[in-house]
């Protein structure tokens, strides 16, 4: 008796909540909403930090909450709350209805929720399969020890985080979905110092839906990579500024496409009128050597998902095919306001954000050239082996730091340089990507935008940009 009372009056994870969810949706539709969506979340996260040879931080966290979104016409109201009782959810619906000032008598029809699509069933065991705090601490300590390769390394850090998110999504179009998402990342960082010289090195690795991934992670290889990067850059000179051809390395080199072009292909940018590509569908926007893809289906990739945060299975979207713009990345609001069909890209950081059109695994497809072909084709330029972060301004200009760069002279890599920044605009740079390598590789990252920080993958093969502004000293 007590159990059934709880079920009817509060969301209970792992149980059937259909009656309660339908009641909430009926309530919103009855008050005049065109569309009602309920997103409910339960999280169980932990992170561990190792510094030098000690664990210095272990941070578990857990929480739960709901985001209620109401549409009326093209307007939407969004309310988030930690109160998952029937009373709390109905109060949130009322608040959203009141915000939208809905007073008309027109009523949409709600025929109840469809059959439950439960993607979580095979994933319930994940929480018991992920490494324990003790296990991951041991692994991190071994990793930071591996970074201690000479006395120039003055700071060594290893970090791990695990996010387990259980979601229930229900909406007035009948969508009724449950899922469990697991994301794990591990990162290594060093600072090297010698007299007045300083450099740093860092790498981050990540996966989704692979609870055992870091048990078998090759920490020695990762540590060697970070160490070598910091040593190569320790005595590097500052790069001279100017216009020059550049070769961008694969993996995280793809961050430039993600930031400078990918965001401009999200329907939120069309809604704002801030993308130069708004009316360019089926027009050439890039060099014919460029094909670009956004998808959420690569197994284990950091941006993959079984279902997006609006209950749609992700699709593989070819954004640019041989330089021609083919598709935009769209969510429910994007389809409503711009007409571009949803692509399973409605994503949000957590229940306190409304979903928005966001990238997943986004990359430039591989071409036919080797890395050496690209470098050999340049008489004087820059090789960007490792990229740092960057940003894109409101009018499309981008700016990216080069973490590890080398001067190209007469088709060969020469001395390392630091302080380089790549500056440009997507619509001007995309036609200048003239060669794509055959070594496509992906890298995990976090993307911050209108609906918070979400897990993504960026990627590309080695690519050559014929000319770009390199900032330096």
């Amino acid at each position, binding site marked *: 008796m007590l159990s059934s009372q709880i079920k009817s009056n509060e969301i209970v994870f792992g149980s059937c909540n259909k009656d309660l969810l339908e009641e909430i949706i009926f309530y919103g539709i009855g008050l005049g909403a065109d569309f009602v969506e309920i997103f409910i979340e339960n999280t169980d996260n932990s992170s561990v*930090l190792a*510094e030098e040879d*000690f*664990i210095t*931080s*272990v*941070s*578990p*966290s*857990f*929480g*739960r909450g709901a985001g209620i979104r109401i549409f009326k016409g*093209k*307007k*939407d*109201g*969004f*309310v*988030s*709350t*930690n*109160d998952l009782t029937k009373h709390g959810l109905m109060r949130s619906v009322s*608040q959203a209805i*009141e*915000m*939208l*000032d809905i007073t008309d008598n027109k009523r949409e029809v709600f025929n109840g929720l469809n059959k439950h699509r439960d993607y979580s069933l095979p994933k319930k065991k994940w929480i018991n399969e992920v490494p324990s705090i*003790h296990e991951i*601490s041991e692994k991190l300590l071994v990793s930071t020890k591996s970074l201690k390769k000479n006395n120039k390394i*003055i*700071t060594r850090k290893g970090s791990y985080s695990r996010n387990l998110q259980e979601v229930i999504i229900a909406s007035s179009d009948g969508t009724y979905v449950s899922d469990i998402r697991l994301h794990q990342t591990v990162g290594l960082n060093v*600072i090297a110092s010698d007299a007045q010289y*300083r450099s740093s090195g860092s790498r981050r690795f990540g996966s989704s839906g692979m609870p055992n991934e870091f048990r078998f992670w090759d920490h020695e290889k990762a540590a060697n990579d970070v160490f070598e990067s910091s040593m190569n850059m320790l005595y590097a000179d*500052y790069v001279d*500024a*100017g216009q020059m051809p550049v070769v961008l390395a694969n993996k995280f080199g793809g961050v430039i496409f993600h930031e400078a072009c990918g965001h401009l292909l999200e329907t939120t940018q069309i*809604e*704002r*009128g*801030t993308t130069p590509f708004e009316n360019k569908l089926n027009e050439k926007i890039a060099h014919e050597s460029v094909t670009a893809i956004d998808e959420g289906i690569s197994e284990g990739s950091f941006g993959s998902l079984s279902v997006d945060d609006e209950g749609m299975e992700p699709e593989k979207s070819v954004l640019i095919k041989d330089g021609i713009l083919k598709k935009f990345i769209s969510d429910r609001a994007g389809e409503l306001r711009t007409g571009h069909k949803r692509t399973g890209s409605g994503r949000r950081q957590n229940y*306190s954000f*409304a979903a928005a059109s966001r990238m997943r695994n986004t990359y430039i497809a591989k071409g036919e050239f080797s890395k050496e072909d690209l470098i050999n084709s340049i008489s004087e330029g820059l090789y960007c082996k490792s990229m740092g*972060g*960057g*940003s894109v*301004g*409101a*009018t499309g200009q981008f*700016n990216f*730091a080069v973490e590890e760069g080398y001067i190209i002279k007469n088709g060969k890599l020469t001395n390392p340089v*630091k*302080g*380089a*920044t790549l*500056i440009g*605009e997507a619509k001007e740079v995309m036609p200048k990507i003239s060669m794509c390598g055959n070594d496509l590789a992906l890298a995990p990252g976090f993307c911050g935008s209108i609906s918070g920080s979400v897990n993504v993958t960026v990627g590309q093969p080695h690519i050559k940009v014929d000319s770009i*502004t390199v*900032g*330096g*000293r």
Partner: protein
Amino acid sequence: MNSIEITTQISEAADSLNLKKWDYGASFSNDHSVQVDKGEAKQLKASQKQILTIRVWNESNLVGITTTSDISESGIKKALNQANIASDFGNKNERTEFSPLAKDPIEVKVTKKRNPAGIKKLLTLLREAEVKLIESHESIKSVPYNGLSESFFERVYANSDGAFRSYTKSQAAIYLYARAEEKNKKPRSSGSVKLGYGVEDIDIESCIKDASDKTISHLNYSSIKTDKYLICFSPESFLTIINAFSSMFNARSILDGVSLSNKNSIGEKLSTEALNIYDDGLHEKNISSSPFDGEGTPTKRLCLINKGRLENFIHSESTARIFKTIPTGHAGLGSKVSVSPDWIVVEKSKENSDLKTSLDHSSYEGEFVYIEELNAIHAGVKASQGSFSLPFDGWLYKNGKKISIESATVAGDIKYLLKNIVNIESNQEVTTSGISPHIWVDELSITGDA
């Protein structure tokens, strides 16, 4: 539950779990926000949030922590349990204790109580602001980034030693970023942000005017030649740089090996004798002020640079103990307690005879670059190495004319920048992140397209 009830709940749950030493920080908020698009409501948001962070000390005096949004009775018990488990992994090399100042009196700024304006009022005000901004100039076609929000919140700190402090507050903010377009020219965008304790305190008209003036002033732009230039930093951009390199003043960063300073840096000459920098979280102009930090230590004014020399570091309880001083009210509650500045105040000291006072941004007729706003701080600053390479919005002043710079970055080294300050103007300006006058620096590298 209110904060006293939560404290009682935690205390009772801790007793039942035989946890003798604990503390917690919590925040509870109610927020409203609106965005508009060409007169239509775009997104209307409301949220009720609660976050609770609990630390417990085990029998070996090691600390464990847990954060949760579930403050039900079962949620609190679960959080205490998880924190207790996490304490097995507590840092044995750097002990954490309660702040010795957690029961000292705090100075709470008295502000008039504001009532929520509500979504409808916010929407009406933002719609009006959008219309006015678009009508302010024919080239302004849209305001793609805009928002008006209000937040009402309570923050609490308490511990098992009897410390208990809380305060309630409200804050409102508006931002307007306009986009201007002219034929055969690149679109230009700029904006303005204003804060207040409540919506009624925000000067929306000046936000509209600032956003319009800034955007229009960049319509006629030109590329800049890559070279070294005399630079004038706006108050906002100078504060951005100082905050980006605040690890120089940060004891936590020093212990972590990621600061340009070390334990013995106090007294080191960093800049001209004319430069004073304070951290002053309780400054009357700081809308976001908090009377205590995450460990319950009272917030206070602290001199960071006095007459060009490093004067103090900012501390948490543990860093202060290691440095044999007292906490300064800059801690953030966490498994590893963070340290960060509150509100930077830059001023000209009385020892200012070496300054080139002819350098005044409103009257100087020589060539210089005026940096209005720095962008992409997270990407272009290497705080542990002291270097920066940042895109900026600004102008080139040349031959008595002012030309907006199309797209450029400024690069340099923070120690070089501080050492090469050649003038500190007299008038301080209040920004959203602190107070500063215009600051002039000789010879920084600018990369442009030309």
